[in-house]
């Protein structure tokens, strides 16, 4: 009988939410947003990466022409040779200023000694700098070896380009992931967890508030227990979020599989900061476990906040301490990505309020002993029970209250009241 009623509450929460426009807006915008996070850096690096530069040649040998040719042959630069002379630097500077030129390289005979200068509007581009250094040093090495009388064919053979592949070791096994993938996966999971828990937690809160302000809650609690109502609400909204994930998952797969077509550019090379992460079943499991756990924990708190407020404005204020806990975990994510094994990161992944974001982030960033995950999940589980128990007591009294918001002392009394 009660199961039938709880089911009806779950069904209502689910159907009414999925019918709303914002659900489908989110379903559509989510992949676009996440796609942007993934694709933008790659886009900027490949397409925006073609820089038009001038090479100011002050050499007395053919080295300047050779350097220009070498740079021009890369995908990063389009280089034009300019003979050094009076006022050349000034006019080039003016061109850079007018955005007719991205920058210019100044070389003279001391290039052989390893000296050159690059002036540009943007000198922070990692790719541009690496390409410049790489191209010039290869050239100089060759010239110097030839000057020492080494056979050019030997020089060619001696020059090997090193491509460092990084691979993550997990559970004693080599995974297909490299460093960039681990980072992007951890980052991605952190953002999704943070947004989803916050968004859907607040959804639970407004649902509670709606029933309270319309007073329909009186009819409901005369038909089923407040706890059953709260449970149905949490499960119903949680199911909506899982449904949203399914939609996101499918569309993300579609976007990624069509990625090269979407970009229609050259996607090769180790320059990509974000790569498609390889999500293992275990990682998926960890993500899901912590999402469900985190959502249960936070939505119980958000439900209590909704119950103790009597309008939107009050609720917005009252939910701040709860949201702060989530924001804290989110901000700490970047420090944890840097050093997933630090005491700070380990602590956050055990504290139940930060664990739902901290633990999956650490899991994705570096391999973790299963025992640590198990301990963290156990703590989270116990906390969910305790927090839900407290929240349901606040909820039970709060939903029938009118008038001003209770203070901490009154809240404690509500919790204690049988």
């Amino acid at each position, binding site marked *: *009988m*009660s199961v*039938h*009623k709880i089911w*009806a509450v779950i069904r*209502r929460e689910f*159907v*009414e939410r999925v019918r*709303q426009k914002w659900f489908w807006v989110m379903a559509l915008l989510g992949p676009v947003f996440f796609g942007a996070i993934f694709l933008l850096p790659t886009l900027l690096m490949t397409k925006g990466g073609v820089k038009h530069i001038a090479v100011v040649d002050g050499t007395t040998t053919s080295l300047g022409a050779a350097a220009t040719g070498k740079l021009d042959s890369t995908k990063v630069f389009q280089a034009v040779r300019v003979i050094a002379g009076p006022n050349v630097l000034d006019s080039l500077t003016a061109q850079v200023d007018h955005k007719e030129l991205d920058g210019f390289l100044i070389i003279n005979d001391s290039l052989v000694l390893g000296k050159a200068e690059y002036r540009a509007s943007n000198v922070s581009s990692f790719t541009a700098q690496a390409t410049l250094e790489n191209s010039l040093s290869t050239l100089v090495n060759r010239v110097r070896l030839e000057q020492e009388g080494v056979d050019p064919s030997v020089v060619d053979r001696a020059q090997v380009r090193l491509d460092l592949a990084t691979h993550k070791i997990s559970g004693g096994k080599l995974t297909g992931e490299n460093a960039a993938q681990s980072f992007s996966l951890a980052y991605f999971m952190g953002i999704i967890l943070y947004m989803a828990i916050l968004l859907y937690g607040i959804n639970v809160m407004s649902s509670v508030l*709606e*029933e309270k*302000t*319309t*007073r*329909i809650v*009186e*009819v*409901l*609690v*005369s*038909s*089923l227990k407040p706890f059953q109502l709260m449970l149905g609400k949490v499960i119903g909204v949680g199911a909506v979020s899982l449904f949203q994930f399914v939609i996101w998952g499918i569309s993300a797969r579609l976007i990624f599989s069509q990625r090269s077509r979407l970009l229609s550019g050259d996607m090769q090379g180790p320059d990509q900061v974000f790569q498609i992460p390889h999500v293992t079943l275990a990682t998926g499991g960890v993500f899901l476990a912590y999402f469900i756990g985190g959502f249960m924990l936070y939505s119980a708190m958000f439900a209590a906040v909704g119950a103790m407020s009597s309008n939107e404005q009050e609720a917005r204020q009252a939910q701040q301490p709860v949201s702060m806990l989530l924001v804290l975990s989110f901000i700490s994510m970047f420090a944890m990505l840097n050093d997933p094994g630090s005491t700070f990161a380990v602590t956050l992944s055990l504290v139940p309020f930060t664990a739902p974001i901290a633990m999956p982030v650490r899991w994705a960033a570096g391999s973790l002993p299963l025992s640590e995950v198990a301990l963290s999940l156990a703590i989270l589980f116990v906390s969910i029970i305790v927090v839900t128990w407290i929240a349901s007591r606040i909820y039970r*009294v709060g939903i*029938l*209250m*009118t*008038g001003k918001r209770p203070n901490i002392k009154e809240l404690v009394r509500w919790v204690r009241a049988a």
Partner: protein
Amino acid sequence: MSTPILVVDRVTKRFAGHTAVDALSLTVPPGVIYGLLGPNGAGKSTTIRMIMNIYVPDGGTVRLFGDGPHGGDQSARIGYLPEERGLYPKMRVLDVLLFLAEMKGMDRGSARTKALGWLDRLGLHDWRLRKVNELSKGMQQKVQFISTILHDPDLVVMDEPFSGLDPVNAQVLKDTLFELRSRGKTILLSTHIMEQAEKICDHICIIARGRKLIDGTMTEVKRTHGGQHLLVGFDRERGAAERIFADRRLVAKHDGSAQYAELELAHDADAQEILKALIGSGARLSRFELAEPSLNKIFIDLVGPEAATAAAVPGSEHVRA
């Protein structure tokens, strides 16, 4: 006498600093329209919420359908219309009705058939797929009313059902209540509008400041508490009416205007004496009628001074839980 549908036994509810309901007892027999009457802040809504198991009494018990205190799930047998109305504003009318019926243990299939029937009957058929907040206030009231009785409850509890209803909808509600009663259902409603209660209630209970002042069938209450009443209409000439009405041996209380007076006869007084005295003093009468007192009169006599005090306590109705 058959088993009462509802027995409220010495229930008490205290809120921070004041007692809203004080050892109140009442018994509702089956198949009647029972009026819980009282001024604002008398404790009507609090009593109803305890009956509905929304508030837990600080003392006393509520027994429904002859069972123990809230034994088992009886919500399916009760329909409840709260004082403050409200539905999910963004839900479709039919969906709200189905959901609330499910809350009462109905399955969606039979709820749908019944809901469509009621929507048809109350002229809301074309609105069934519209959102609640697109409906007028009166239509929303009707929808909420349907939700109260959709699951065909044996006991219908309505807190101020007539407040905010226009005369047409009030008539629809009244007709439906009579129909429910004719089908053996029991209705408990609260109101502070005595004219309304007088027309529809079989049983009444008048409370003020959380205490019962009187209860019983309408006839009993009128007989025991009203005394004998005399309605007098004057045709321009009042004669020595004032002097005669002031005679405590004949008239206990009197009230009225230049053309009309409602008298409560003194104990053992004979109405014919008054008639003789009035005629003798030269009054011309257009009406002289022995009557039951109006419920309004009984109510004011009983709670008049107290009602004034209750209303003077600021926010006495707003302190809840």
